[in-house]
């Protein structure tokens, strides 16, 4: 049995302006101790999915239309408030995107870390304090600073406090929602390393939400690519990077600058993500996709099985489709600038033809 299983989850927000379809029938599983990456542009529904796992969505406006989130055999969406409270923090915990706003400004950080332990069954205040000091040591913050308030810490230290808070109760699943986005580039790697090593030490499974494919390549075993509330491609990191199947995933790789290729221009995906209030009828990516045809516009593609746990939601998911996107004029920039025709994802795994990829 998987640790977490999301089945056909559909979430929408009922706003005054209209119904926002944030998550549209996603399925994914996370095994015990596994690192799973959830990748997508901003607005793809990643955070909404994570909040649904903790049942923390504000309702109204959020409405979980259908689906199940099975954690250790029980549906989180059907749990009583009390049971839910016991699971939050102790079984499943979350690192929020912005450490600046996710710490309470009027409570000491020691108090806040202790809270994660204190309110769960069978823990005394003394236990909580011991655990707090232990966690502070693990994230390399001096113990005497536990009496300080969040405004006395730098951004990177605050994120370390948040990590200590999330892992204090030794949860089985950690939801890390863009844990490095709000941080300075120089400490992003440091924070990621810290999360990974603590996660491995405690055998915690992790759902890592990010828009950074590089981070996924470094940290995760399996990943899913999300677009307009749907999972368009899911598989192991190798499958996604080596044999990229979905045009959107390819587009993502193409919009990343590479150090070891001489490129004058990046090739971003044309257009914008569709308005979640007015999604296309067929494939959600069809309006931006260079391979879109009649069938893509009229009919939603099924999640195709490409073998060995690699799935892709595309009518053209067959191997061998061209990898590059034409620019506005229809020129295929990639060929003009003499780029190699190999899969761009390879560079990330160090398998490309570039100078680093031997």
């Amino acid at each position, binding site marked *: 049995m998987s640790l977490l299983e999301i089945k056909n989850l559909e979430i929408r927000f009922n706003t005054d302006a209209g119904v926002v379809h944030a998550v549209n029938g996603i399925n994914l599983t996370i095994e015990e101790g596994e690192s799973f990456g959830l990748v997508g542009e901003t607005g793809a529904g990643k955070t909404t999915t994570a909040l649904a796992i903790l049942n923390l969505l504000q309702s109204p406006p959020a409405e979980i239309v259908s689906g199940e989130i099975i954690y250790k055999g029980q549906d989180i969406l059907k749990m009583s408030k009390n049971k839910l409270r016991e699971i939050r*923090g102790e079984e499943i*915990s979350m690192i929020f995107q912005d450490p600046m*706003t996710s710490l*309470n*400004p*009027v409570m000491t950080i020691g108090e806040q870390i202790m*809270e994660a332990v204190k309110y769960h069954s069978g823990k005394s205040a003394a236990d909580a304090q011991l655990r707090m000091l232990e966690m502070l040591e693990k994230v390399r913050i001096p113990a005497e600073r536990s009496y300080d308030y969040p405004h006395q810490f730098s951004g990177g230290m605050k994120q370390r406090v948040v990590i200590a808070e999330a892992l204090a109760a030794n949860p089985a699943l950690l939801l890390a929602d863009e844990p490095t986005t709000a941080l300075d580039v120089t400490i992003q790697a440091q924070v990621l390393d810290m999360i990974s090593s603590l996660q491995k030490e405690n055998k915690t499974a992790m759902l890592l939400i990010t828009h950074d494919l590089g981070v996924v390549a470094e940290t995760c075993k399996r990943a899913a690519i999300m677009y307009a509330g749907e999972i368009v491609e899911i598989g192991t990191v190798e499958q996604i990077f080596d044999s990229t199947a979905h045009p959107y995933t390819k587009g993502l790789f193409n919009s990343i600058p590479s150090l070891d290729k001489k490129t004058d221009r990046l090739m971003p995906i044309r257009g914008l993500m569709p308005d979640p209030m007015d999604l296309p009828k067929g494939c959600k990516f069809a309006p931006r996709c260079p391979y879109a045809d009649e069938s893509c516009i009229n009919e939603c593609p099924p999640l195709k099985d490409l073998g060995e746990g690699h799935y892709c939601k595309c009518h053209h998911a067959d191997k061998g489709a061209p990898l590059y996107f034409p620019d506005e004029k229809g020129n295929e920039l990639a060929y003009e600038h003499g780029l190699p025709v190999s899969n761009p994802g390879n560079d990330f795994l160090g398998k490309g033809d570039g100078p680093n990829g031997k």
Partner: protein
Amino acid sequence: MIKYVIKRILMMIPVLIGVVIIVFTINYFSEVSPAVILAGANATAEDIAAKNAELGLDRPYLVQIGSYFYNLIFHGSMGTSYIYKQPVISMIATRMPYTLTIGIIAAAFSAVVGIVLGILGAVKQNSIFDYISTTLSIICAALPPFLVCLGLMLVFSVHLKWLPIQGINGWKSYILPIIATGLSPIAMTARMTRSSILEVIRQDYIRAARAKGVPEGVVVWKHTLKNALIPILTVVGMNFGLSMTGSVICETIFNIPGLGLLMASSISQRDFITTQGCVLVCAFIVCVMNLLTDLCYALVDPRIKAQYKNTGKSIKKRSIQKGGAAA
């Protein structure tokens, strides 16, 4: 911190001087001189001039205001009432307890009721609790104070005969004035609490607390209320100042021998020196309440506390620099 308090106390001095100058100037240019009232209906111009000279009101503006300040600072005297021939300070001192009792109890009562109504409204947003709390506070805010006083008097004193109509005669006499003074502050506090809590409860750190499995009661009372408290404290502090000035209407209607009644009667009798004393005391109380409110901010919010400490440091640095320059 102590340096901050000293600095704030020093800053009160210009405020109080300003209040005295404004009230004195308004009175100085008043059309009816106190002497006209004192000399009686059939007084001749000479009688009035003699009275004026006796009260020292024939002196130039600057001399009068100067001597007022001189007496205030060096003799601690606020002058002698024109009408009652008593020191203003002792008149105020005998009346102060009534006003303070009503003011403090009304402010505390309105703070407690207002905060509870506000929290109920915010936590159970858009429920029946919210509507009741909102309706109650709009009613409280919309009622003019004099009407509230008369209405309460009519219902509880005249018809039900539960409470005395006027004057001070045992603890029962305080109930109606306290309710009348506290009603509109309840409304203000409740509205402010509700909106402040609603703002805080949407913050990321509240969601983070819930994600840690903190019980809902702790989320509301510890995480939310403490963060929402700053605007609430401001309103509660202001309400206390308001209840001092509001006492003019309330004490006049309920005939309570407090500061408000003294102020009202001194104005109608042109006993300007008494009016001035009363206004000065009111201004002083409002200043002290403001200071107390600001100090409470530091208790609630560690960031403000750190700021206050820095204020103290900058004074220290400046005085060191000054000392250095002098040497």
